[in-house]
């Protein structure tokens, strides 16, 4: 154990120290080129390592992935569009896409609505109550999806009929004389997928709550007051005065959760491993890459995911440019 600790500390010092020395050397090199060149070279010395990291770990592999998507399982020969045809005509993969679509339709919207609702209600509590409520609901955000799935075992767990039930949901079902149910195996109406979504929503509502709450607090009191003076009811004030003013934040939360949901992975892997018709794109990607060893399919799935994300990417860049212009 002691050796492992020592290794850990050495690794940390080595990694951080190495990076520091790298920048020191780059800076010295830039300075050594003399006054005239120094100013031109220095930006690249400063930004270089970061750009290199991005190029090596994101841009180059992304290009390579596109290339692999047109190649066979071990990337030794090109197969044209065969991977795309295989996947997009296979019923099981279409089912995977459909599941992902369900996640995309349900989770971001519910996360926003729940967060917004709770944000409005907590706004009326006294500061201490508000802080406590927010912290409690926000807390799951710190927990890994593996951890969250483990936590939710205490709710969803199933024991065979006749043995004591250890999951709360089955215990409740038992009170009504029904069950026990193996929840994760019930794919009727995608119940199992919905139950998995609950876990993800549980971890995300806090994020939505905190962002939307700070947006609501930033709504100028006089606009609300003006509506009130005009005789608008609470509901009218909320939908016609508050919501339009926090719309930007609503979109931000929605899209952030959306991106997360598009590549939802851990919660499905840990609970059902994609079985019982709960599989999603990122889980299938992991399976193709790691278990099945089919680089062609894995790369194709990633390309499909990237294509789906392009609209978000365009929105993101536009939003950024508009912001820069406003500066």
């Amino acid at each position: 154990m002691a050796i492992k600790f020592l290794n850990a500390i050495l690794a940390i010092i080595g990694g951080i120290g190495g990076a520091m020395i790298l920048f020191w050397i780059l800076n010295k090199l830039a300075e050594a080129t003399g006054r005239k060149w120094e100013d031109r070279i220095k930006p690249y010395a400063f930004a270089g390592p970061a750009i290199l990291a991005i190029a090596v770990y994101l841009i180059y592999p992304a290009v390579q992935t596109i290339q692999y998507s047109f190649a066979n399982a071990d990337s030794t020969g090109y197969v044209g569009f065969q991977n795309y045809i295989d996947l997009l005509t296979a019923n099981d993969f279409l089912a995977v896409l459909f599941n992902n679509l369900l996640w995309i339709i349900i989770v971001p919207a519910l996360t926003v609505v729940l967060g917004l609702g709770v944000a409005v209600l907590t706004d009326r509590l006294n500061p201490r109550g508000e802080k406590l409520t927010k912290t409690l609901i926000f807390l799951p955000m710190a927990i890994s999806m593996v951890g969250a799935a483990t936590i939710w075992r205490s709710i969803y767990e199933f024991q065979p009929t006749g043995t004591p039930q250890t999951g709360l949901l089955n215990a409740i079902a038992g009170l009504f004389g029904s069950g026990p149910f193996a929840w994760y195996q019930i794919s009727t109406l995608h119940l199992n997928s919905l139950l998995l979504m609950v876990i993800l929503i549980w971890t995300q509502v806090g994020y939505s709550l905190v962002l939307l709450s700070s947006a609501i607090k930033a709504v100028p009191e006089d606009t609300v007051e003006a509506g009130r003076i005009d005789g608008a009811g609470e509901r009218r004030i909320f939908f016609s005065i508050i919501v339009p003013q926090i719309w930007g934040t609503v979109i931000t939360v929605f899209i952030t959760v959306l991106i997360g949901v598009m590549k939802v992975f851990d919660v499905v892997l840990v609970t059902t491993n994609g079985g019982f018709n709960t599989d999603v794109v990122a889980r299938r990607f992991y399976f193709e890459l790691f278990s099945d060893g089919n680089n062609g399919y894995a790369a194709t799935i990633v390309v499909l995911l990237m294509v789906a994300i392009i609209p978000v990417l365009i929105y993101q860049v536009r939003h950024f440019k508009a912001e820069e212009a406003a500066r």
Partner: protein
Amino acid sequence: MTSNIQIGTGTPQMPDDNVPAAKLKVSKEGSGQGSASPLVRIFLGLLCVVWVIPVLGLLISSFRTRDAQLSSGWWSAIANPFDATQWTVANYVNALGGGEGGVNMGQAFINSFIVTVPATVIPILIAAFAAYAFTFMEWKGRDVFFVVIVGLLVVPNQVALVPLLKIYSQLGMNNTFPAVWLAHIGFGMPLAIYIFRGYMATLPMAVIESAKIDGASHFTTFWRLIIPMSVPALASFAIFQFLWVWNDLLVALIFLGRGDNTIATVALQGLQGQTGQGRELIPSAGFITIIVPILVFLALQRYFIRGMTSGAVKG
């Protein structure tokens, strides 16, 4: 983001106040601090209970013996908490010591630190230098590069995994710590640069100008002025990255696997399938895995929220 949220999409718009004011009428009280009706209070109270119940279940189970865990639900421990025969710390001892369960959470827990700390600190250093160049230096390609970085914020890490796995196995780097460090450094870089640049752009230009006039080099200005002034932004990113790396399953699963170098999330995921011996360790292993991010989060919540409202979430 937790592990699933990836990236913010720009700064949330703060509302402007040009909504027309209007005619006089009766004002009605109904919202505002402390105005919650009993119904609202009860609802929020219930919601908090619902939110906490699953965690409570895990915590209680983790301290119950195998027999107790299997013979009754965790809630029955609340009904008779003084029945001492059901309580035990053996689950934690076994999970950490790698005893009967066969999963050495103790080792995996340490490995999580070994992976997370360098993967959090190193990108901060590299990204801060880059953000300085993007904010305070004029150079060719600067704006184009930055737009690329903004775009990369939403690109899933999966794009890199197929080629990386191949490259790593050619280099014999699979299942080593540097393989994961480098991957997390690369994946975290766009977000780090984005947050830091956004923050540095708000720093007073005059301070930097006067440092320049006083003859300070960029290097000195960076270390002595910019870094100390940027601490809130650095802290925000540090928390995101720490939580993201600690909570990550995919990257660790692919590049570290289940051997001696495995981390807590992977070890916990491996335990889930247990039905026989070792099953009783799942709750304690779960708690061991989540306790560090929870503590970090509670201690540094302020910075976390500041980072989020500045438009960037990954997790």
